[in-house]
């Protein structure tokens, strides 16, 4: 039974011919994947994407809830039910446009968003079996749009005459830029590195998010009118005050991401062969070290070696799966809690296991061992057990006395999180920071202590996910637009 449409909220009648009680029995369509033993040797994408047929088949499973919890649980509020219905109708460009109303980077979120924590986790189909493949559908629609996108059809909003500077071209910055340009503001994005995309480019490997996808999404934004400038470290090359006072920006959004990689502070972390995940992944992703010597950036030789990544998040899994692709003989994750506490996406854990990554959980290194010539030769580790929950709500790992053991290692990669990058905070007078050095910003407006300056993403929250950063970018864009149109702070 569907509610009759009222005149105020016209609801399009579903063209899905399958009764709801049949839909819930339909199995979820699997994502076609490259074979594990083939893909773990190359950097090409693992997930191959739905065909139009698979997408339509999957879209038919949506039970079209009256109050869709998927949208409610999406940090940017994608209208899932509506875009899925458009897929059922075969109107893929319409579906893309529908997603774009709330999400300017659908080809990216369709690939890297932890859907199980948001839309898919909230999907009512979970009660009956598997959730709707919302991420897969989003990816399909976005890729379809990409193939059929016509730059000439982009309609630009009438200019407001207001200028906004976006600092950082990662997920929060790109989202804010996309939303603001659609309101007619002049948007200029500053990026410190030589490529646009921030963590999407330097952090996430090609096999999970091809660079081509990012470039195409950025090209769409360019067509929409967003200006990009690389090689600018705001705070060093130009300060926020100079942007506002000398370059005439009416508002600034700071989305500079997380910063300095953390180390454990254990002996041997300076040995050659010990990397931060950020450095390792930057060498691979941004600098193409896996294509040495075609590209100049070098990497130590991984072939046949024992490689361990310390940590259990998506970054850790990206690093260990990249290590396999560099030829590591034995690749494992060292994580101090159990698999249940791992913050990584479920799909990444599954993919990593299929590819041959070994998980040594409830273990942590105590010391890295020197081969006598300054190179890593192994680690002395300790086993852990789980104690009481800590402030994060996860059970605290407690060392087991006398459980020390040694493992031989040629490379160790630390993926245990980051701390705040200080450049903006130390060069912007009056910008309030938290105890841990992150920028203080309001949870809903993303306003900072400085008039006209907004901030969001990891530089406010500390290391989180792409979609949470995008949510912050979206909220910031909304309040920047309000500020620019009303003048009220």
């Amino acid at each position, binding site marked *: 039974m569907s509610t009759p449409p009222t005149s105020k909220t016209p609801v399009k009648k579903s063209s899905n011919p399958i009764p709801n009680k049949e839909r819930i029995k339909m199995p979820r369509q699997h994502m076609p994947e490259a074979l594990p033993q083939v893909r773990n040797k190359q950097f090409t994408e693992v997930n191959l994407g739905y065909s139009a047929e698979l997408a339509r088949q999957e879209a038919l499973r949506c039970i079209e809830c009256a109050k869709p919890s998927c949208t409610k649980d999406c940090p940017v509020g994608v209208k899932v039910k509506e875009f899925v219905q458009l897929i059922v109708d075969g109107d893929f460009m319409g579906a893309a446009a529908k997603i774009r109303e709330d999400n300017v980077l659908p080809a990216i979120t369709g690939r890297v968003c932890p859907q199980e924590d948001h839309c898919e986790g909230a999907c009512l189909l979970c009660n009956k079996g598997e959730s709707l493949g919302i991420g897969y559908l989003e990816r399909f629609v976005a890729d379809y749009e990409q193939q059929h996108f016509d730059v000439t059809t982009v309609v630009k909003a009438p200019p407001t005459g207001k200028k906004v500077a976006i600092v950082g071209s990662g997920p929060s910055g790109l989202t804010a830029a996309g939303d603001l340009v659609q309101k007619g503001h002049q948007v200029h994005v500053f990026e410190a590195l030589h490529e646009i995309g921030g963590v999407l480019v330097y952090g996430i490997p090609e096999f999970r998010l091809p660079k081509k996808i990012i470039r195409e999404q950025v090209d769409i934004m360019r067509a929409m009118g967003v200006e990009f400038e690389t*090689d600018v470290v705001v705070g060093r090359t130009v300060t926020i005050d100079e942007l506002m006072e000398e370059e005439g920006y009416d508002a600034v959004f700071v989305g500079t991401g997380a910063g300095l990689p953390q180390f454990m502070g254990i002996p041997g972390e300076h040995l050659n062969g010990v990397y931060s995940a950020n450095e390792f992944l930057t060498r691979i992703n941004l600098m193409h070290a896996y294509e040495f010597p075609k590209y100049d950036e070098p990497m130590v030789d991984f072939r046949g070696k024992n490689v361990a990544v310390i940590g259990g998040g998506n970054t850790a899994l990206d690093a260990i799966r990249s290590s396999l692709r560099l030829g590591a003989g034995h690749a494992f994750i060292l994580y101090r809690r159990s698999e249940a506490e791992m913050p990584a996406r479920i799909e990444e854990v599954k993919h990593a296991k299929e590819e041959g990554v070994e998980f040594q959980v409830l273990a942590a290194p105590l010391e890295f061992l020197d081969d006598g010539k300054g190179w890593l030769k192994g680690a002395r580790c300790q086993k852990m057990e789980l104690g009481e929950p800590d402030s994060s709500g996860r059970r605290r790992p407690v060392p087991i006395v006398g459980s020390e053991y040694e493992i031989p290692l040629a490379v160790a990669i630390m993926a245990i999180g980051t701390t705040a990058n200080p450049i903006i905070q130390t060069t912007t007078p009056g910008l309030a920071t938290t105890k841990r050095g992150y920028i203080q910003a309001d949870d809903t407006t993303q306003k900072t202590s400085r008039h006209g300056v907004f901030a969001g993403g990891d530089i406010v929250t500390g290391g989180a996910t792409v979609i949470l950063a995008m949510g912050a970018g979206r909220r910031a864009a909304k309040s920047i637009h309000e500020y620019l149109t009303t003048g009220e702070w």
Partner: protein
Amino acid sequence: MFKILNAQFIAPGIKRFVIEAPRIAKKQRPGQFVIIRVNETGERIPLTIEKSDPEKGTVNIVVQSIGKTTNLLNSLETGDSILDMVGPLGKPSEIENFGTVVVIGGGVGTAMAYPTASAMKRIGNRVITIIGGRNKDLVLLESEMREVSDTVFVTTDDGSYADKGLVTDKLRQLIENGTRIDLVLAVGPIPMMRAVADMTRKERIKTMVSLNPIMIDGTGMCGGCRVLVEGKSEFACVDGPEFDAHRVDFAILVQRNAMYRDAEKRSLEDYKHEVESKKTAAPAEEVACALEAKK
């Protein structure tokens, strides 16, 4: 793209570039550096800023041919461009009226020390400069340094110019003569900086060194440039590049800078081979054309 307005060798294998980079020129302070990427397949490397002209919007960098990237860079001429240049990076030098400052520059390190020496003089310090080079050709910026220093000493390892010996010999003389020294700034090869640090540690003279670890992003993101400072990891790109010499673990710096020695060697060999084959390829083509014409 960053246009090279002028490129000139100032010593064998050492080239000075004047590059159009208005944003960097406007902001550069003594002690800061840039990161460049020559082309699409290039690596990112940190380089010394000799000086900049905010009015003209230009930045001078001084580059010594060592590996592939610096050789490639030094093959560029006036009118060519560098794909990426980002900066100014790092914390500026602390410029204060310390009293007497001894500025020590070794090789291309002299270019990095020059703007700091200049600023130290301007604020009222007595500046004693010691420039060291392996030989006469590798003594850089002597006349520039004379303009901003009260006294300049020059040493060459082989005695081909000025005093034969090392910069530390001159520093020892100054100390033994009872010269009051309030601060030493040393910029140059690691063994030189380490020797200076060892000498001034005993004398309890505050000493700063500008470190040059392997670096990628230069903004505090990757952690590749971490140096061990009194047992603690610090990042040269955001916490440095200048550090208190007496707290730096130089042995770790040497060890970490050698991490990619094999790859660097291979890159350089490949590059030289490529340059050679280009040189010989050109006449070969001409021959082919001539043969073609005969047919």
